[in-house]
């Protein structure tokens, strides 16, 4: 896969002298640059333009984040959540997945990096919830791919001193890319878990535009393991389609062939789910995609999910394959209900805190 190089860069005037801005400009010497007074006004004016003209994932915005960088993962009380925390160094992603919720979630069509990196580090230093020594799993992959812009930002290296200084904190770098070499050199001390989002070969090829190949991701994970990292894998979203069983089983076989079970911190499973407007938006962006033609029904949180029988069918198979091929690996659900847990794993964490504890144990073991 090719590394993202913006074709055009907007810079909010007040961040033009910040270190990250200067670094990005040095690394993108050919991109035209436009200084703007206000990122907010720029985004508002782009929203008035036609989608076809602002879409394309080629334009980068460097601006100030005026809100929080760190927050709790926006889960829901109706489905079991794992107590994850989200760190947001930017928003938007150069990869172009047909199922990506950001298509409907973000109102900003630009790939955005927050240049006030020092404010982010200061916020982490000051955050009371990160001071008590307890285990906290934090991820940067909620609103962007954790590594897709790292060749411009060096965020992974920049954040390491803080995470190494706080035992109990773990940063999960969640990605569909394969540029792991800079991470291999880091003295991470177990503070980082690198995770790959995995899917069937068909889904990777047809729905995850611009992302690395499945084999490439597994190869990158293998390198990370060799460098002493623990790794995670996320089968989310699972997509029910032709030959889905063969497809997902093949992925687990590939994992089992290359990654030792003890190096796997966790594996999450979740099926495709989306707020209703995403279907129309994604339909315009990806008119040929068939992933939204499954039997989706409104879940208890208003999101569309596969009919529960279909989810149970997929989950039961996945649980069985992991048991057979990668025994001992901890597999959990993202945003599922008691019926799915009980049917697939034979138990249901009684509270969100109980699920969090199960995942935290994966870090301390």
């Amino acid at each position, binding site marked *: 896969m090719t590394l993202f190089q913006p074709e055009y860069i907007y810079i909010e005037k007040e961040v033009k002298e910040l270190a990250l801005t200067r670094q990005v400009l040095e690394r993108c010497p050919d991109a035209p640059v436009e200084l703007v007074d206000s990122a907010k006004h720029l985004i508002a004016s782009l*929203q*008035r*333009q*036609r*989608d076809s003209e602002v879409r394309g994932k080629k334009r980068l915005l460097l601006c100030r984040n005026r809100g929080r960088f760190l927050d709790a993962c926006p889960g829901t009380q109706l489905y079991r959540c794992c107590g994850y925390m989200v760190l947001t160094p930017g928003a938007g992603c150069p990869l172009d997945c047909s199922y990506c919720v950001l298509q409907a979630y973000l109102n900003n069509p630009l790939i955005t990096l927050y240049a006030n990196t020092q404010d982010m580090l200061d916020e982490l230093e000051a955050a009371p919830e990160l001071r008590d020594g307890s285990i906290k799993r934090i991820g940067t992959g909620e609103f962007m791919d954790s590594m897709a812009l790292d060749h411009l930002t060096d965020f992974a290296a920049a954040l390491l001193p803080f995470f190494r200084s706080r035992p109990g904190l773990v940063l999960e770098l969640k990605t569909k890319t394969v540029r792991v070499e800079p991470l291999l050199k880091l003295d991470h001390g177990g503070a980082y878990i690198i995770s790959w989002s995995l899917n069937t070969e068909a889904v990777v090829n047809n729905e995850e535009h611009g992302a690395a190949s499945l084999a490439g991701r597994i190869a990158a994970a293998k390198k990370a393991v060799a460098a002493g990292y623990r790794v995670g894998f996320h089968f989310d979203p699972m997509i029910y389609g032709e030959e889905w069983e063969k497809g997902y089983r093949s992925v687990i076989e590939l994992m089992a062939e290359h990654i030792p079970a003890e190096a796997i911190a966790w594996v999450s499973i979740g099926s495709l789910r989306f707020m209703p407007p995403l279907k129309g938006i994604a339909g315009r962006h990806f008119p*040929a995609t*068939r992933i*939204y*033609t499954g*039997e989706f*029904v*409104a*879940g*208890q949180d208003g999101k569309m*999910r596969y*009919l*529960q*029988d*279909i989810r*149970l069918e997929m989950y039961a198979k996945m649980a069985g394959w992991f048991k057979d091929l990668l025994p001992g690996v901890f597999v959990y659900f993202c945003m599922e*209900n*008691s*019926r799915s847990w*009980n*049917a697939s794993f034979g138990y249901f964490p009684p509270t969100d805190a109980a699920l969090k504890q199960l995942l935290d144990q994966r870090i301390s073991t």
Partner: protein
Amino acid sequence: MTLHSDTVTIPLTAIGLEDTAFVITFGRSCEDLARAIERAGLINPPVLARLPGQEAYRIVCGFLRIQALRQLGFTDIPARVLQPGLRDAQILELALCDNISHRQLNSVEQAGAVKRLLNYVPETKVIEYWLPLLGLSPSAKALESCLRIAGLEQEIKQALAAGAISGHSAVELAVLSAEDRLALFRLFSSVHLSASKQAEIIETCRDLALRDGTDIQKVLSSEEIAAILAAPTPNPSHKAEQIRSFLRRCRFPRLTRKEELFSALAKILPHAGGVRLLPPQSFEGDTYRLEIAFSRPETLADAAQTVQALAQDARLRSLFGDGR
């Protein structure tokens, strides 16, 4: 931009009735207007633009009035004539302002206006200035919707202007191939569907065509739909429901099968005494509900017995078989 203040008399033969460059009106008849003119006379003379160097005129405002006057047998009509030298863009703006000053344009008129404005005005100005004047939100989405509607076939525009199909449906139809669009439009013309049901059928048909690798035309030409449409009864509204139901079964085969099984089970389970078993919405989760209707304490007691019998019925356990 000013008008000559005097009203002059122009022969109808000098007016280009086929020239619709500035005509905003769509889907309106001149019958009522003709009756009004017959009764009260022409209150506001139409506005014309003279073609350079000719004794010929283009209609700027008052297309319907001129049609009505013609229908009433006038050969010469009173009109105001624009000063010479105006550009087409200025004339179009004047025609639009005249229309929006006294009425709400319908969706087809709005769409036609936007399409023509884009010939002269930058897109951002159309969005920010003209769309609100036309009663639309100043957004790229509204502009795109207008362009889609403007590109529709005349018969679909007529149906939209007449309210037979909704604006949302028209926009959704516009993105389909002509064959698929007309197949859906023919269906909407033959059965009665509300705007939301039209939208549902468009979405369902699109999903089915995409899922099955076919096209909407083929989905709608199924034997089942043909049989429903050809049957002498029921009335078009009921036929619409039958078609919706058929399409839903195709689109959600497992869900509808589950609904049918539950419905069959609910019928044979104990259900006397006003007790009704309700499944979780879309069978999501495993929480079923019981509804008990009673009007007197004795009927509540009957219901309690029914509930007890229900709880002990082995067939009820089949509902939970896959989850426990």
